[in-house]
Structure formats: C-alpha cells, structure tokens
C-alpha cells in the first residue's frame, strides 16, 4: 500500500506538471501581512496622538458646566478617533495572527501590546504637535468630520448660561462673527486680530441680544500648550474663568 500511494503521488505530480510554489510568493505574502500590521499600528498611533491632544486640551478644569461628569465626558471624549483606534487595533491583531508565528501569542497580549505601542508612538506624535495639526486638518478639510464634531459642540452651547461654541466665519476690524454648532450666527464685538476664519472657538460671556454676545473670554476650542497662545479678547492672556 505504502509504495502504491507514494508512487501514485509522484506520478500525479509528474503528469500534472505540479511544481512547488516559488519561495518569493510566500515571502511576499508574509511581508504584506507584516506591512499591513505596521501600517495599522501607525494609523492607530496617529489616532492616539489626536486623542491625547483632544483630551488633554479639552479644558476639563475650567468647564463652567452645571451638567454632571457624564455630559463632560460626552462633550470631550474623542469618539471618532477612538473608533479609528479600535478599527486599526483589530486590523493589526488580525494581521499579526496571520503571520507565521502569530498564533503563538496570546490574543490579550497582542491587543495590550498594540495599545501600548500606539500610546508610545501617539505620545511622541502629540508632543511634536502632530495631534493638533491632524485634528485641525480633518476639521477643515472633511465635512463628515465636521458633522461628527457638531453634536459634541452643541452640548456646549448655552447662551443663557453665558457660553457658545462654534466656528469663526468672519473677522472684521470691529467684530467677529461666529457660527455656533447649531447653525446660529453670533456677533462678538472686539478688535482682536488673534482669530482666523475657520477656527473653532469657545466664547464665555453674556448674551445681549438674540444674535449678539458680549464676550469676556474667547479662546480656541482646544487649549494650546502654551497659555500665552490662548488669546482672549484685547490680546490678553486668558484669566481664570468666572464660576457660574
């Protein structure tokens, strides 16, 4: 029986001209899997860098919100980037599992290692200012991202309580016009030249008329790293926020 099967197989190989697949095919497949893993980790790291920026500069300590912690989390949690991170961790996990020796690793270890690597690279990305730039680029260039950010921005708007949040749509010598995240236009009387069209801002002050706001503080939506960059009206550095 042994000789028969062995001989049959050899004959079949010869008759059908079967050849071993070339080594480069397997190497290429393996490199592609590793490359996708590396790209997934890299994109996850960029998302982590943006998340670090958004969370760290979300102004947790100065929020004059009468709402509780849950609403603060809803306003400030970077959902979009969190979803991006999760998607790319899953892609990285799937690809590492499909490398030649990927099965040897515990799935939990792979996920934790991917998250730790993302945090390390993401922290470097954040420290170099990349997190801020990437987030801002997404907001300016991609309407879908703007639409995603709006619901969070809307939670911040409460003119009666003295705060609005939106995007600068016009900068005039005498006033700045802001379109809040609900679509309402507000005129802020000021002579400051520190804000530019397209910039997201938070404004704290008093509502004077339905479309006019007297601002005590106007600052970028996300705090800058250096306090001196957080321009308030009349080019002064921002004072501590008044408690409601």
């Amino acid at each position: 029986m042994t000789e028969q099967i062995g001989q049959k197989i050899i004959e079949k190989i010869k008759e059908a001209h079967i050849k071993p697949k070339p080594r480069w095919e397997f190497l290429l497949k393996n490199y592609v899997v590793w490359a996708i893993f590396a790209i997934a980790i890299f994109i996850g790291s960029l998302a982590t860098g943006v998340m670090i920026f958004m969370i760290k500069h979300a102004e947790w300590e100065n929020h004059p919100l009468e709402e509780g912690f849950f609403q603060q989390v809803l306003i400030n949690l970077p959902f979009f980037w969190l979803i991006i991170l999760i998607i790319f961790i899953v892609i990285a996990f799937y690809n590492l599992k499909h490398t030649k020796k990927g099965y040897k690793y515990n799935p939990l270890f792979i996920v934790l290692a991917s998250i730790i690597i993302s945090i390390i690279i993401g922290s470097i990305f954040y420290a170099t200012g990349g997190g801020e730039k990437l987030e801002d680029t997404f907001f300016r260039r991609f309407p879908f991202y703007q639409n995603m950010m709006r619901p969070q921005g809307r939670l911040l708007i409460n003119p009666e309580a003295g705060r609005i949040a939106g995007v600068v749509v016009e900068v005039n010598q005498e006033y700045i016009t802001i379109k809040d995240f609900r679509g309402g236009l507000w005129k802020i009387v000021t002579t400051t030249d520190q804000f530019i069209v397209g910039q997201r801002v938070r404004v704290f002050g008093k509502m004077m008329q339905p479309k006019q706001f007297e601002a005590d503080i106007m600052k970028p939506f996300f705090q800058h790293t250096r306090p001196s960059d957080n321009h308030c009206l009349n080019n002064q550095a921002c004072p501590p926020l008044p408690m409601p």
Partner: protein
Amino acid sequence: MAENQGLGQKTDNELVKLTLKNQENFLYLVNRYEQKLLYFILRISNVSIEEAKDLLQEIFIKVYQNLNDFDPDLKFSSWIYRITRNHVISHYRKNKNKPTLLSSEINEETLNNLASEFDISQAIDQKILRQNITGVLNEIDDKYKEVIILKYFEEKNYQEISDIIKKPAGTVATYLNRGKKQFKEKFK
C-alpha cells in the same frame, strides 16, 4: 539501492531540501508519513478508508506545492500534521459531516494511557471500555477532542499541538484540561 537507503535515513528537513532539487525524493517523505497521517485522518474524520486515502493524496500534493513555505524553525511533522488537519476540516465543512472517532482506532496502548490519564477503572472488559471511551470522546466538544487525539493518540507534546492547531501553548493546556473535565463528567 545503497543511495536510496541513505536518503531514507536523512532528516525531514534534509529531505525537504532534496525534494526541492529533485521531485523523486518526495517519495521518502511520503513513505515516512503516509501511515501516520492515514490513521490521523481516520481519527479526526468519519470518512471511509478509501476516502481517507484520496484525502491523503490531496494532502501530499498540497504539501509538495507548499514545500517552499516550510519554516525550518518548526518540526516538519508539526507542519505536515497542520496541513492534514486543515485539509480534513475544510473537507468535512464542505460535506457538513461531524467527525466521529471509531472504537477500532483505539489500540491497547492508547486505551491504557487514556484509562490511567482519565482515572478510569480498567477492571471492565476492554472491548466495552473501548466502546465507552469512544462514545464519550465523540460527545465532547470537537476542539477538546482534537487536542486529546493529538496528545494521546498521536503522542504529540504541547508545543507540537500548538504548532499543529495554531493556538498558543497556554490555550492547548486549557483545552486539554477542559477536555479531560468534560470527558470525566460524561464518563460517569
């Protein structure tokens, strides 16, 4: 003839290299694994002996086509068992047959091993014991049964099982413990 005998004594890895140079040398690898893999196929599937032989041919062709993918860090036997296992699984997925172990697959040595490992009294008739063990093995979850077969029938160690089923060694140990537990519960 003397040359052929020399080839028969070569290691698996050496035979892989020689096969890549000359396909005739594949015969030595086939001869070395044919019997073992045939029994393995019969143990993890419910196919007839003829069907198992057909599967075996397909498996050896697949092995030959993928020889360049063999990683020498791995034992060749683990690699060829892995290909066999995957091929059998895809075969019974295609045919939607649940693999069933046959009592005739348990020889006396394996029976004694299983009995002592699973704390089973061997005082009863061997034939009945064999049937009982087979019946219980067919009732436990496939993933646990597969690990038990590899450990006690194919006599593979944890690392080899890990390489064959492509799961971490810790998972193999867990599967084996759970398999034993299920076996003991169902055997009562």
